[in-house]
């Protein structure tokens, strides 16, 4: 979901989306003409500058495709087999249609004809097989990682003919289709894939099939993209399939947040990425377009370690669930652009159900639960049991800039109920070393994670099949394991949906996962003259459809 300051832009986007389906066929045959955008009359030409806080590390496609920073560039340089919009709706892109068998172990993909990579190679069945193989396996000894969230159940893929690919899985894998629209699944020319890691790390040597190609880049400085004039295979869902309108997009690294915003305000740049939430209200009033799209994934919240006392006690976990005033977090740290959580997955994920009742702020209930669990308030206001104080150590997530502010607010809220909360903030490297799910000194792990398909969630929460065992339950909760197995084995969405609902209700009721707010990890501040951009299911802005209005 995208929130913007301009009502006009919002209505135009709605028009664009609804018109997209109806006009997809017409548009496909008339590149450059776009009736859906006619109201704003997109104009060819123009160059924009996007100020970004980092350009990430390596450019090896597999290792960088899901980066919050490099993902922006990959989104313009490469295409995907399917398109996933901000509501999680999957639609055709380079795969025109697909079939799957009854138990979701075999899929047949039918590819669009005439698509080429920018190095001249055809994007045919053989190219798709090469991509599927490297997403699944990587080349670990060379330093090319697999795509972390690609289904581990992948067996093999075969090119039936030039435009047909057959994909086999060892177990039912409903998540495969949404995976193809995920940010990790970018299509790279087989020639580029065959290059050694050191060549793949040079962005200019990697060819994609996207609407833009890399003109120049300098590590830690900038990437300049120019449009590909023969591009003619955009996703119908965005209402435009011909070449892009803007001539060039320059992603320029400016690490200081205030300089990024000030540069847009002074007209020196068009988009500033990751402004601080506190600035958004005044920027909106000044007329800038503010976008806070949500990705498909988990909400921001805690996975509770059930091995550490007192969080092994369901009553203490439930007290934690009821003792957090989530509305106050939005009012204090964020702006109304942020949303209350309704489950432990974002509300725009297909399959998410509304569990708000379990997340209501009820301090009386929390205090009552703590009393029942034997935690008695002492003279200093801190609760204790058997001489031990009720403590909670929070480790602020370094991947989310506002994490520490939220922690501080929650510490105050829980403090009133008798908790003694301490907060630790580590840098990314130390955090990665010390803070892990279920770690011996980690009562709560703060989650920020997008995912492709709600069906993969249950596997992550438990320890089955390399699962991440988020709550350190191991095999102790048979009900959770049962739900996990049923969800993994479901062959259809109809069969899976009620199971997913049960899972959400159970995990929240048990206090295994404590949601804080729905997550907005990407904030865009945009010049009012730039219009027509589209946000996809992982909240990246695409300027493929964007143009400069006079």
């Amino acid at each position, binding site marked *: 979901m995208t929130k913007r300051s301009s009502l006009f832009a919002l209505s135009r986007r709605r028009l664009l989306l609804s018109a997209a389906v109806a006009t997809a066929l017409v548009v496909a045959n008339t590149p450059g003409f776009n009736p859906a955008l006619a109201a704003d009359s997109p104009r060819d030409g123009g160059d924009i*500058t996007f*100020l970004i806080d980092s350009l990430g*590390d*390596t*450019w*090896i496609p597999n*290792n960088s495709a*899901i980066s*919050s920073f490099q993902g922006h560039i990959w989104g313009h340089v490469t295409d995907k087999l399917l398109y996933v919009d901000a509501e999680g709706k999957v639609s055709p892109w380079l795969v025109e249609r697909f079939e799957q068998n009854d138990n979701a172990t075999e899929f047949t993909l039918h590819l669009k004809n005439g698509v080429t990579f920018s190095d001249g190679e055809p994007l045919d069945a053989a190219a798709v097989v090469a991509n599927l193989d490297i997403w699944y396996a990587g080349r*670990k*000894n060379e*330093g090319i*990682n*697999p795509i*972390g*969230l690609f289904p581990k159940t992948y067996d093999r893929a075969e090119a039936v003919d030039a435009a047909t690919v057959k994909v086999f899985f060892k177990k039912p894998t409903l998540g495969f289709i949404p995976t193809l629209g995920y940010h990790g699944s970018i299509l790279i020319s087989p020639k580029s894939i065959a290059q050694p*890691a*050191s060549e*793949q*790390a*040079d962005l200019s040597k990697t060819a994609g099939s996207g609407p833009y190609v890399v003109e120049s880049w*300098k*590590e*830690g*400085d900038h990437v300049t993209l120019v449009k590909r004039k023969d591009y003619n295979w955009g996703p119908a869902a965005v209402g435009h399939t011909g070449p892009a309108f803007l001539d060039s997009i320059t992603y*320029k*690294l*400016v*690490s*200081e947040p205030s*300089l990024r915003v*000030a*540069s847009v305000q*002074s007209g*020196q*740049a068009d988009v500033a990425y990751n402004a601080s939430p506190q600035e958004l209200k005044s920027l909106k009033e000044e007329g800038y377009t503010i976008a806070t799209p949500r990705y498909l994934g988990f909400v921001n919240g805690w996975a509770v370690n059930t091995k550490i006392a007192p969080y092994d006690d369901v009553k203490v976990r439930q007290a934690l669930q009821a003792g957090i005033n989530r509305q106050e977090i939005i009012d204090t740290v964020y702006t109304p652009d942020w949303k209350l959580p309704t489950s432990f997955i974002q509300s725009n994920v297909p399959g998410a159900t509304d569990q708000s009742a379990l997340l209501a702020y009820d301090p009386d209930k929390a205090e009552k639960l703590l009393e029942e669990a034997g935690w008695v308030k002492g003279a200093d206001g801190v609760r204790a049991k058997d001489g031990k104080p009720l403590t909670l150590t929070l480790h602020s997530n370094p*991947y989310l800039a506002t994490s520490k502010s939220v922690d501080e607010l929650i510490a105050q809220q829980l403090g009133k109920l008798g908790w003694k909360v301490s907060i630790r903030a580590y*840098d*990314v*490297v*130390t955090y*990665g*070393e010390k803070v*892990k799910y279920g770690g011996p000194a980690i009562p709560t792990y703060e*989650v*920020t*994670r*997008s*995912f492709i398909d709600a069906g993969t969630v249950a596997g*992550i929460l438990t320890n089955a099949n*390399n*699962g*991440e065992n988020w709550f350190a339950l191991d095999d102790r909760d048979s009900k959770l394991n049962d739900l996990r197995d049923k969800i993994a084995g479901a062959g259809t969405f109809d069969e899976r949906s009620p199971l997913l609902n049960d899972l959400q209700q159970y995990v929240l009721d048990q206090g295994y996962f404590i949601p804080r707010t729905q997550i907005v990890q990407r904030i865009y501040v945009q010049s009012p003259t730039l219009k027509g951009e589209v946000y996809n299911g992982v909240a990246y802005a695409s300027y493929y459809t964007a143009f400069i209005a006079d």
Partner: protein
Amino acid sequence: MNNAYLTYAAKRLGQAVVVILLAYVFTFVVVSILPGDPITSVLRNPQNGFSEEEIAEIIAAQGLDKPIIVQLWHSLSGFLVGDLGMSMRSNRPVSTLIAEVLPSTLILASVGLAVAMILAMLVAYGTRFVPKRYGQGLLRGFPSLFLSVPNFVIGLVLIHLFGFQLGLFRVINPDSFWATLFAAIALGIPISAQIAEVLIANLDKEAEQEYATVARSRGLGQARLFARHLLKPASLPVVTVIALTIGELLGGSLITETVFGRTGIGSLVQRSVSTQDLPVLQAIVSLGAVVFVLVNLIADLLYPLLDPRVKILGGQKRRPTTADETSIGPSKAVTP
């Protein structure tokens, strides 16, 4: 060029090589004992969703699980034959990374040094020739002031004043003429302070010398006295100070580059430190050591050529004492 000079030069060169090797090994040990490395920190990004087993497998495939001494030997043997290795963070050759950013830093450092020298000269001139009632004392306070204001503060003030208010340069185009000049000013101001202090002290000393009094008594004007007589002898020690400020220039460029958004050695160091990219850090520390040692070597080797009073005695450089200057006859070794 006599034998003593050559021996002296050879000895200094040998010391330089040892310093560079020690810097290399020291960096390796320090970074290695810190927890974490760029590959694991990328793998541990929660978005990736790798399990502990997968992370361990990838780490082993990269040879990062080998003992530190084996890794050190591997990288040192490469370094000795001129192979700087591959960056663990970006997977590109370290030499390419450095070659990409070096020109920007060289430009910034040389313009910064020029700014520092001009500024120091102006301040030093001012302390002699601005009348007391017009703030000579104030000028003498300038070096301490320059030293005490951090250069990122100077940088941010310059950016807001000249970049955003006056629009002289665009923040997003930091390699333009004006942006480079203002970055160099931010970098040069603290460095000018050190040069100015030495220059002022030496001017004061030289002005009290008899030859200055004689020159003045012959009716020489202030400006001519400064330019013709005082400046040259007073600036000799400045050569040493300038050589020492090379370290500051490299260190200061780290902050200045970050503030001004320039992509140079400084920003490469910053990215490499934050991700513990060992091969890049080792190469840059060694490069820094090479530059520092080389510049000081050049300064030391130049000294005897600039100042005829400096002699090389038994492989030691020294400026003769007053006793030598007053002694008449061929130069002779003097025991210290």
